């Protein structure tokens, strides 16, 4: 009976209060103390800046649902962003750049999945190792320098609009729709719930948990590739340390969004709200002129508090 409960969709009523309350509290707080926070320009800025994080946090949700973790995502994003910059600079083609980013990202994702599923290395150490590798490769391909002069076709992705909506937001919405469909309306999605909740059941059903696990990590790597395109477009350059640490914001968004680290329960909409909460927190602190170091520290505190509450809930 418990297994059946885990595989079914989570009860949103139990979760909405947590992350929504955090978001409302943050918005109320910064509306009161941060001048200009509630302006349309600033709020849409928060949303546009949250798009890269959305593309990391959604696959991170799936990975954490399998009781895994991907610490390499920020470093892989850095590497794919550099690949996009270097290839699009050499070929003048945005699509070839995106292709290179996707390829490299997916390769790292498959490597992560292979290490975790086939070799059985604990995910946090396996992906810590690949974090080092991606970080090293970023330094090697860029020789520690920024890659500048990338073509307009790449840069325009970040600033263009589609029917009045910024293209990054369109991309994030499409990504969300794809992940929602994948997780809640396909068999693969059900298997992902089972990977965290009841791996044995998959084996009895004649499926290979290992192959599914590799697929989940590969999706994470590929998404880092797409996010790499946005990153390069946003900075108008490739930089060897650009995305380092972004995996932590993604983990924070997932944790705040109510996905559990221990029971294979995930909630995609919660993750999106978590992404916005992290974005609001950083933006608000920025508006009251606190340095980015304080933002980093407060995201750290946010994660620890969210995990503590998660632990309380699981014991209750």
């Amino acid at each position, binding site marked *: 009976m418990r297994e059946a409960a885990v595989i079914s969709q989570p009860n949103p009523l139990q979760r909405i209060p947590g992350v929504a309350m955090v978001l409302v509290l943050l918005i109320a707080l910064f509306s009161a103390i941060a001048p200009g926070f509630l302006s349309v320009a600033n709020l849409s800025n928060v949303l546009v800046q949250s798009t890269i994080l959305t593309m990391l946090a959604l696959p991170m949700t799936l990975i954490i649902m399998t009781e895994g*973790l991907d*610490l390499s995502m920020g470093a892989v994003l850095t590497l794919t962003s550099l690949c996009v910059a270097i290839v699009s600079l050499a070929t003048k083609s945005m699509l070839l750049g995106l292709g290179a980013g996707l390829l490299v990202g997916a390769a790292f994702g498959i490597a992560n999945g292979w*290490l975790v599923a086939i*070799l*059985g*290395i*604990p995910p*946090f*150490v*396996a992906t*810590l*190792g*690949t*974090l*080092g*590798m*991606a*970080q*090293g*490769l970023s*330094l*090697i391909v860029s*020789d*520690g320098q920024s890659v500048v002069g990338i073509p307009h076709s790449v840069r325009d992705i970040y600033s263009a609009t589609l029917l009045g909506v910024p293209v990054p937001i369109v991309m994030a919405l499409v990504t969300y729709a794809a992940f929602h469909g994948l997780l809640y309306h396909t068999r693969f999605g059900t298997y992902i719930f089972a990977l965290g909740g009841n791996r044995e059941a998959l084996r009895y059903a004649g499926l290979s948990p290992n192959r599914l696990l590799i697929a989940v990590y590969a999706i994470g790597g590929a998404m880092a590739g797409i996010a790499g395109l946005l990153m390069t477009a946003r900075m108008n350059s490739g930089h060897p340390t650009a995305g380092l*640490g972004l995996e*932590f914001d993604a*983990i924070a968004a997932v944790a705040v969004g109510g996905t559990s*680290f*221990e029971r294979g329960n995930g909630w995609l909409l919660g993750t999106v709200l978590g992404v916005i909460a992290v974005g609001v927190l950083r933006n608000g602190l920025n508006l009251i002129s606190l*340095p*980015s*170091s*304080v*933002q*980093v*520290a*407060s*995201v*750290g*505190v946010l*994660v*620890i508090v969210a*995990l*503590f509450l998660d*632990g309380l809930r699981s*014991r209750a």
Partner: protein
Amino acid sequence: MTDITKDAIAPPRSFLSQDAIQLFYRLLAALLICAVLAVLSDSFLSLGNILNVLRQASLTFFIASGLTLVVLTAGLDLSVGANVALSACIAGTVIHKTGSPALGILTGLACGGIVGLLNGIMVTALRIPSFIATYGMLWVLNGLTYWYMAGETLHGFPAGFRQIGSGYLFGLPIPVYLLLVFLGIGTLFAQRTIWGQEIYAIGANPVAARLSGIPVARRLLLVYAVSGTMAGLASIIFLSRLNSAEADIGESLTLPAIAAVLIGGTSLFGGVGTVFGTFIGALILTLVLNGMNLLSVSANWQPLVTGIIVILAVWLDMKTRRRAQ
């Protein structure tokens, strides 16, 4: 009565000899790397380079030795590098403000220890998985350090203080003596005291440890506090050797420390490993990085190689254990 408890906790004899064989292989690997480097590079066998390797290995060892105890309990401390940075910056400020190195050293050790204690509280009282709790702590510490330093660099410390990291005694660098002291203390503590054996027991089987009356939470607190204090010690050596402190000095320290622990044969799943193994691990890692340096491979390659080594070490460990069972 105490003897019976001790016998029950101590690992069976066959396990110990298995550990001895593993250590022997690792020593052999270290020697092999030395031989290869001696052939490839003329300057490897120079006295200056060997002392340099030992000094570098001792820095990695200080951080990794405390981490070994954490990993023995099947935990992980990802915050050690960031802890070194914060402790170094605070200790440096204290020395600058008061002019007293002794006070600075105490502050550095205390800062490291308090951070470790907080990690322990998150793991025991709040029951957050250790790798996530200490990963969160990593970013909290990073943020605090950058905010505290605000882009400044502390520079220039009293000559006496600088001796700790860069001085010599009877021809050997002072950190090497410290290494020997802490290698001795760590080994004695882990192998020859009840607390040490209880730490092994917690890692091997936490439920059995609790049922046999070991105060698991208190031992875990101790282990994380020791790991933090050793990071504090490393911060002092760093400060005194570099003669400066910056917010970013910790960023490249965590992965090598974890690599040293894992190469040294301490199992990520807890209960197996030795502090001496970690010393050999630190030595092997330093030899590899030193060799790359001597063969003029760009420092950009170091994270890549360290990452590969971490994964290889875990994989080898799991393979040998599977075969042994």
